[in-house]
C-alpha cells in the first residue's frame, strides 16, 4: 500500500454519522463514495436503486431531512449529521404496507419494480406538500422519475388512490 501522505485527495476518508430510517449509523467512508453506494453497499439497504448515476432517472430517490433527493448526485460525507428515509423505512417491519405502497399494489403501479422505490419516495414527498393533487400535478411531479415498464398510467392511478386514503386517514385523525 502507498503511504497515507501520498494518497490523492479523493482517497481520503472521513467519519460520518447519519440516521437512516430511524437508526443511527457511524461509519468511516471514502470521501468520494456516493450516498447511493453508501446506502446500498455499506448499510445494505439495497431497496434504493441506481439507474443512471447522473441524476435523471430518479431510481435512487431518498428523503434527506424530509426532502426527496437523488442519492447518486451527492457524496455520503455530505449527508453527515442528516436524517435519511429509504424505501425500507416506509413500512418498516410492519405487516401492513404504507398506504402509498398498498395503492401501488392494488393499481398494478409497478412491473419490474426497479424504479418503484424511487417513485414511492417522490410520491411520499409530493403528497406531504400537496395532499390533493390534480392528475396534471401528479404527472408533473412524477416527471423526474422514469419508468420504462408501466407507461405511468397505473402509477398515476395509484397516487390518486393513495392521496385519497391518506386524506381520509388525516381527517379521521383530526376528528379523534
Amino acid at each position, binding site marked *: 500500500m502507498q503511504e497515507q501522505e501520498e494518497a490523492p485527495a479523493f482517497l481520503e476518508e472521513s467519519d460520518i454519522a447519519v440516521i437512516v430510517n430511524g437508526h443511527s449509523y457511524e461509519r468511516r467512508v471514502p470521501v468520494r463514495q456516493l450516498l447511493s453506494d453508501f446506502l446500498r453497499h455499506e448499510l445494505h439497504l*439495497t431497496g434504493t436503486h441506481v439507474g443512471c*448515476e447522473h441524476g435523471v432517472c430518479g431510481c435512487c430517490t431518498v428523503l434527506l431531512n424530509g426532502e426527496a433527493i437523488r442519492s447518486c448526485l451527492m457524496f455520503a460525507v455530505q449527508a453527515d449529521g442528516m436524517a435519511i428515509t429509504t424505501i425500507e423505512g416506509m413500512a418498516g417491519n410492519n405487516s401492513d404496507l404504507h398506504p402509498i405502497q398498498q395503492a401501488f399494489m392494488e393499481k398494478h403501479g409497478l412491473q419490474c*419494480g426497479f*424504479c418503484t422505490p424511487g417513485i414511492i419516495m417522490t410520491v411520499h414527498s409530493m403528497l406531504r406538500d400537496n395532499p390533493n393533487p390534480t392528475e396534471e400535478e401528479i404527472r408533473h411531479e412524477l*416527471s423526474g422519475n422514469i*419508468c420504462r415498464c*408501466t*407507461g405511468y398510467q*397505473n402509477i398515476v392511478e395509484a397516487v390518486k388512490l393513495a392521496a385519497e386514503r391518506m386524506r381520509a386517514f388525516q381527517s379521521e385523525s383530526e376528528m379523534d
Partner: protein
Amino acid sequence: MATRWFGAPVQRTEDPRLLRGRGSYVDDFDLPEMLHAAFLRSAYAHARIVHINTSAARELPGVHLVLTAGDLGELLEPSPLLVPHHALTQPRTQLPLARDVVNYVGEAVAMVVAENRYIAEDALDLIDVEYEPLPVVSSLEVAAMDNAPLVHVDVPGNVAAHLVQTVGDPDTVFTNAPHVIREHFVIDRGAAMPMECRGVVARWEPQEGSLTCWISTQGPIPIRNGLAAIFKLPEHKVRVIAPDVGGGFGTKIMMFYPEEILTPFAAIRLNRPVKWIEDRREHFISANQERSQSHDVEYAFDDQGILLAVRDTFLHDTGAYTPYGIIVPIITACTLPGPYRLKNYYSEFTVLYTNKVPVSPYRGAGRPHAVFIMERIMDGIARELHLDRAEVRSRNFIQPDEFPWDVGLVYQDGGPTKYDSGNYQAGLDKLKTLLDYDNFPAMQAEARKQGRCLGIGIGCYVEGTGIGPYEGAQVRVESDGRVFASTGITTQGQAHFTTFAQIVADQLGVDPKDVLVITGDTQAFNWGMGTYASRAATVAGSAMYLAAKKVREKAKQVAADLFEASPEDIELADGKVFVRDAPHRALTLGQVAISANPLRYAYGENARKLMSMKLAGPRPGPALPPERGGPGLEASEFYSPPHASFASGVHGAIIEVDPKTGMVSFLKYAAVHDCGKVINPVVVEGQVHGGVAQGIGGAFFERLVYNEEGQIINASFMDYLLPTAAEVPPIIVDHVETPSPLNPLGVKGAGEAGVIPVPALFASAIDDALSAFGVRVREMPLHPNRLFELLQEQQGG
C-alpha cells in the same frame, strides 16, 4: 378447463417484496470477499489497436487483475452465432475483448478487477491504448456507398446478408395496376433502455468445482449451457440465476455479452466472487440497440383502394456484428403485410455492417418499422383516392372466415407466417367508437377555426408471437399443501409469478397465493430458452397448464385409491381433494401429496391425520404402480408450438401539433388489443400501457444520434429523452378475444404489442393535423425540431 382464476384481475403476488425494497436485483448481491470489475471501452468507432500498456494499472494498489485480449488464451473465441440463416453469408460475432481492431465506440478492450469499483475505474484511466484510427462506417448510407470503407476487411460491400422473398406475381400486377406510388422511408436507431442496466455476479466454489452466476438476463439456460462449454464444466455444476431483473425489452436476451464470460472467468481465476455492474454510460455504448432501416417501397392499388401488390427493398443496419443473426429484418419482412389481404409481395433486404453498437431485437423487433410502412401505404392510398383512412383499411382486411391465413413467407422461427385467428374489423370498430372517430372531422374543423391543428391517426398490426421451439414446467405439491411451479423462462416485470400461478391454481383447486412460481434459475428447471418474442405466457404458460393438469390427474388417482372411489368422482377445490357429493371424505392437497409418496416413514400433523383416517391400505403389487409416473404429486411437461401464434391490434390517437414549435401533445389515445384469451386483464393492460409509452418514445423523442466519427452524441438521459409521466397520455385499452387454436390455453403473446403501431399512427395523425401544410411523414423517429424543419421545408418550398 376450470377457469376460476384464469381471466381474473388477480393482484400480483410479487409486489409486496418489490414495494418494500426487498427485491433482489443483481447489484443487490454483495458476497464476502467480493471484487469488482470495470471495463475499458474503445473511444473509437473503428481503429487498429497498435499497443496496450497496462503496467501502471496493474501496479495500482487494490487492483487484482488486468486482462486484455492477449491474456485470454482459449477464451478468445468469437461469441456463438445464435440464429444462423442461409442468407447470412458473412456472420461476424464479437470477441470477449477486442484483439487487433475495434469496431464500435464502446467495444470492450480491457478488464480490471479491483477491491472496489472506484479503484477499478481509477485503473482504467491508467491503461494506455495506442489506436490507429480507420475510416468509419457511421451510417447505412455510408455502408452502402460504392467503395465504402469496410467494417470488416473480409466482408465486401459491408454486406452481411441478402434475402429475397416473393409471394404471388408482383411484377405482372405492377405492370397492369391502375395506381402505383413509390416512396422512401427511414427509421433511425433507438434503444430499449431498461431502468436496470446489465450486470453479472460470479462465484466459483473450488471445493465443489461449481460456478454460480447471477446475471441480469432474459435467457439464463442458454448462458448456463454456454458457460459450461467454455469453462469445460458439467452443466449441472454451473448455475445461472436471473434474479429480479429491472426490465429487459429484448436487450438482455443475448449470448454472450463479453462481461458474461469475463466476470466468471475472473472469479475462477482469482478464486473470489466478482461483480460487474454496467453503468448507464456503458449501457448507451455497449448494450445492443435496434431499429435503423431504410426502405424503398412501391405499392400498387385499384380505384377502390384495394392494395394489389407491394415491393419493399430495404437496408438493415446490424451494427458491427450479427450476434442475433438476421432475425430483425426477417421479422420486418414478415410483419409488413399486416392484417391485409396482400397476395403479391416482393421483399428484398440487405443487412449491412456499420461501426455502431451491435443490433439485436428490442421490443417490437423489426415490427414497428414494418407497420410504419404498411400503414403509410394505407394512408397513401387514402390520400391518393380521397378515401377515409379507416375505410381503406376495412376494404383490405383479411376476413374472420379466412383463417388460417398463410402470408406465404418463412417466419423468424423457420415456420410459416400463418395467421391462426383474428378479427381485425371488430378491433377497428371498437377503436372508432373509443375515439369517436366519425365525429372527429367536426371537432377538427372547429379547432381549425381557432387556429389549432388537430389530427387523428390509426395504426393496425399483426404480430407473430409465442414462437418455439419449446418451454417446460414442473409442478410439485409439497406436504404443507403449497405448490411449487418452476419453468426455464425469466421474468422482467411481466407478472409470471401471478399469471402462471393463476393457470396452476385452476387445475389444482388452490388459491394463486399458494402457488410459488420460480423462474430464471437453472437449478429450478433445467430446460428452456428464455423470455423474448412475446412467448412466455403462450409457450411456458401452456407447459404450466399441461404439468398442472397432470398433477391434478395424479391427485385424483391417489385420492381415488385412498377413498376406494373412482378417479372421475374425485374433485379438487379450496385446497382439498374430496369425493364428489361426499365432502366429508376429504384430504388436503398436502395430505394427498404425502400419500402419493409411498414412504415407510411419515411425520408431522398430516401423517397423524392420515393414520387416523379410515383410508384404504396399499394395493398389492409395487408400491409405486408404473401408471402413477413417479412418487409425489409432481409432474413435468413441455409445450412446443406448431408455429407462431399471431396477435393483433389497432391503436389510435388524437393529437395536437403546435406548428410554431413542432411540439405534439396527445389529446386522446386508445388501444384495442387481441392476444387471444386473456389470463389477467390488469397485467395485459399494463403491458399495453408500457408498450405505448415506449412507442411514443420511439416515435417522438428517442433517437440515438451518431456523428460521422461514429460517436453517440446523446449518450445520457439528459440528451436521449425517455418519455415521462408528463408526455405519456392516459391510454384507453379494450380487448378483442379470438382464441388461438394452436395452444391449450388459447392465448397469444402480449408483451411487445403496445409499442408496435405507435410510429405508424403518430405519422398518420401528424399528416392529418398538418394536412393544410401538405406534410407527409416518411421518417421515424420525429422530434419537435425535426417536425419543425419538415414544416419549414413545406412552407419554404
